[in-house]
């Protein structure tokens, strides 16, 4: 512990005393300022930090479970607890970020020269430095506030990282195999989910514990203790049917046959993202099946089978189980072809606008939850399903799919969540 402190002091001194530090913070908020060259702080400093955490990277995976998020009880949370939490998550976040940086460094050299990927690499280096620095001393409430500010900065900086990274990988397909890509992205997204979750949760906890805040009986940080999957589905359906209306001129619908009054503790953002993706897929399939655009509907036309006479609603079944919630989405969208089934869980496999090979480049901004900004189209990145699965599996849940080609698909979403406090 003492050695670490000495190294950190020496780094701090080195960094503080140079003009470099000034440059970092003035351009920290603008992603575009990060360029192709190696970042401006010396390799020595950042490598030290990463080296420190690389040791923990190999000895243990930074793991925390759902209990840890709600361990302090309902806000307002006393300052000491907040500061303790800040210390803990700083360690976990630094381990995660270091692991990401090392993974990026082990990509083929030519790939990291791609401007998209190098941009991501640079912001990771920057984040490592910033989180390390801002949390060097965590003793008082002001320290925590400064740390929270740095976390917010990091969250904002990384918000658009996924589309950028996706673009970089799409452009580098000739330099890396699909398997390696999938493994890299699986690990990357997993770490990213954890880092963002911890950061945003801590920021929210701090805000909810501010002196002038009313005690909140519902939210603990990002966790909604009365999350209603039914309400979430209804809101998402409203949003998506607007999008479908714009795109196809048809409004899809959804009915809930079981489980309207099921409540669960979970992170709203995560469940919202997953349900948006799954409902989007179901709606799109249902509409296209009705319009005769899917392979299944074409088979039915060819063999004089009965056509879909309506845009059937997606049937949602919500069941509370001992360890969480199971949500089943049943659609009549024609099902998924055998050959596609293996590919849907990979990255950059979008069936949207298949005719255009470079569909990605012409397309569509990703859904709103990923970017935080607008996004009105129905597909394109091809990251939706793997990312949803990463969210579901983060706390031990799962997404399973059973398809009946010619009819429709059933999706089983299992969310793991312990009992409410």
């Amino acid at each position: 512990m003492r050695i670490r402190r000495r190294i950190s002091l020496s780094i701090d001194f080195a960094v503080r005393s140079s003009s470099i530090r000034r440059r970092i913070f003035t351009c920290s908020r603008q992603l575009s300022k990060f360029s192709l060259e190696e970042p401006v702080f010396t390799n020595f400093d950042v490598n030290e930090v990463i080296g420190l955490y690389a040791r923990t990277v190999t000895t243990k995976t930074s793991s925390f479970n759902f209990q840890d998020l709600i361990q302090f009880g309902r806000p307002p949370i006393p300052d000491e607890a907040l500061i303790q939490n800040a210390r803990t998550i700083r360690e976990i976040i630094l381990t995660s970020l270091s692991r990401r940086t090392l993974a990026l460094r082990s990509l083929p050299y030519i790939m990291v020269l791609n401007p998209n990927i190098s941009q991501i690499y640079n912001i990771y280096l920057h984040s490592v430095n910033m989180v390390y620095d801002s949390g060097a001393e965590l003793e008082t409430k002001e320290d925590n506030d400064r740390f929270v500010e740095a976390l917010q900065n990091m969250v904002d900086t990384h918000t658009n990282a996924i589309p950028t990274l996706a673009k970089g990988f799409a452009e580098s397909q000739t330099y890396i195999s699909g398997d390696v890509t999938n493994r890299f992205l699986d690990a990357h997204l997993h770490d990213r989910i954890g880092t963002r979750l911890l950061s945003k949760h801590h920021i929210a906890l701090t805000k909810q514990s501010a002196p002038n805040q009313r005690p909140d009986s519902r939210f603990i940080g990002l966790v909604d203790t009365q999350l209603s999957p039914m309400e979430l589905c209804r809101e998402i359906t409203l949003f998506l049917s607007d999008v479908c209306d714009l795109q196809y001129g048809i409004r899809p619908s959804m009915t809930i046959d079981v489980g309207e009054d099921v409540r669960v503790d979970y992170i709203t953002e995560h469940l919202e993202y997953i349900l948006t993706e799954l409902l989007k897929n179901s709606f799109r399939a249902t509409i296209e099946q009705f319009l005769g655009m899917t392979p299944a509907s074409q088979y039915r036309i060819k063999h004089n089978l009965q056509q879909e006479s309506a845009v059937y609603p997606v049937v949602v079944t919500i069941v509370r189980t001992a360890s969480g919630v199971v949500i089943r989405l049943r659609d009549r969208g024609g099902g998924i072809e055998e050959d596609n089934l293996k590919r849907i869980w990979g990255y950059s496999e979008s069936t949207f606008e298949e005719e255009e090979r470079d569909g990605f480049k012409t397309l569509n901004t990703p859904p709103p939850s990923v970017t935080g900004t607008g996004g009105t189209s129905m597909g394109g990145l091809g990251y939706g399903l793997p990312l949803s699965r990463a969210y579901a599996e983060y706390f031990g849940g799962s997404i399973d799919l059973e398809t009946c080609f010619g009819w429709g698909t059933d999706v089983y979403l299992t969310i793991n969540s312990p009992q409410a406090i």
Partner: protein
Amino acid sequence: MRSRSTLLDGRCTISRCLPLSLYRARTTRPLENHHGQTPVRKRLNSDMPASTVSSRHFYQNETLLDFVARSSRPVSLRQLAFFGMKLTNDKIIQSANFVRQELPTRMAHRIHDMQSLPYSIVRNNHISYVYELYYHSFNTIRRFPVIKTVDDNDRFCDVLRELLAHHTAVIPHLVMGVIECSDLIDSKRMDNFMESMLRSRISRRVFTEQHIALTDAFLKDPNFKPTEQVGQVFFQCSAADVVRQCDTLARSLTQSSHEGIPIPELVFEGDVNTKFACVASHLRYMVGEILRNTFEASAERYQAMGNPPAPVLVTIIDAPQHVTFRFSDRAGGIPPEIIPYLWSFVKGPRSMIRHHNFKQVPVLEAIVEELETFVAVARGQRKRISSLTSLTTRSPTLRLGMGLPMCKIYAEFWGGKIAVKSIEGFGCDVFLHISKLGNESRFVQMNNI
């Protein structure tokens, strides 16, 4: 319940189950074929030693190895069903010789498999019974001379019928043996062994029964042209009708053991008028198992909770290569501790109960009358005596624990699939994809040895 040690103490419990044993030359009850005639009973080859387990057997194994060295020839549905082709003497004889050569080859592969299992397993009563039965049958068929005339074929078909009858008890014995030996061998290897045995058995029985059916049809009418049905293959099997028939049977069986408990209705949706070519007895077995599971679960749930059962949604889908059946129920789902063992013959927590139940499965020759009453219930089913019939009509209190693994083998045999998705505390969805047996050779090669 007896302890494990007494069950494995080498005492032969077989003779109680099997009225026809290898050690007796003649059975007391003649076997009826499906025309109601009683063919002349052939003596079992009496120059065959009573037991194959001797040191002579080791050196005689050369013959077996010769057959193992041959690879089995793939069989297509065209060959089995003679789609729209006219039958002639020559074709029948050709088919007979094909069976005469393929049967021993395929059986040799299975016997060879068993010979590689650990000694302790094959010395188990049940497994050794199956082993000796197979070896004996292998010898019987391989010694049969080349078939040159229609009369030869008649004699050959008699031998085949007898063989089929003898082998009806193989499945219960195999499963009992597997459960008893579950701790002697890695369970994955055991499951693989069971799967290959059953797959091979299905293929042998299918082409054997098809040949017999073709012979019978040809003898009845030499200008016979297969249109609607040949043997077990129905060309225009109505999917919804099969489900309804199985529903009737499963319902009456469940009702008989759970008196007065309401059983969920079936609600159909989808392409309910689908007709396709399939092996009807296989389909009936699979659908029957699935429905029985659903009804059992539903009855148990009603006993526990009292709510009237929700209807079971049956979706029939006509897809390019398959006909898909989806059974969606609300009977409470599968307990999570069972799920890892769902597809295994080597069961987890419930294996000893299953084993006990197995001993009570009726074997055909012994209780034909009892079988007839069951068969009368399922009107519309052919009165076929097959090993599947005894399983299909067993009492629902006999939980054998092999319904799903068996369905998987039958489904995958023809290139289909089965999947089960359970929502804990709510219900199950079972997805059964059955291959359409058409002229596309891709799905109809039986090269599973």
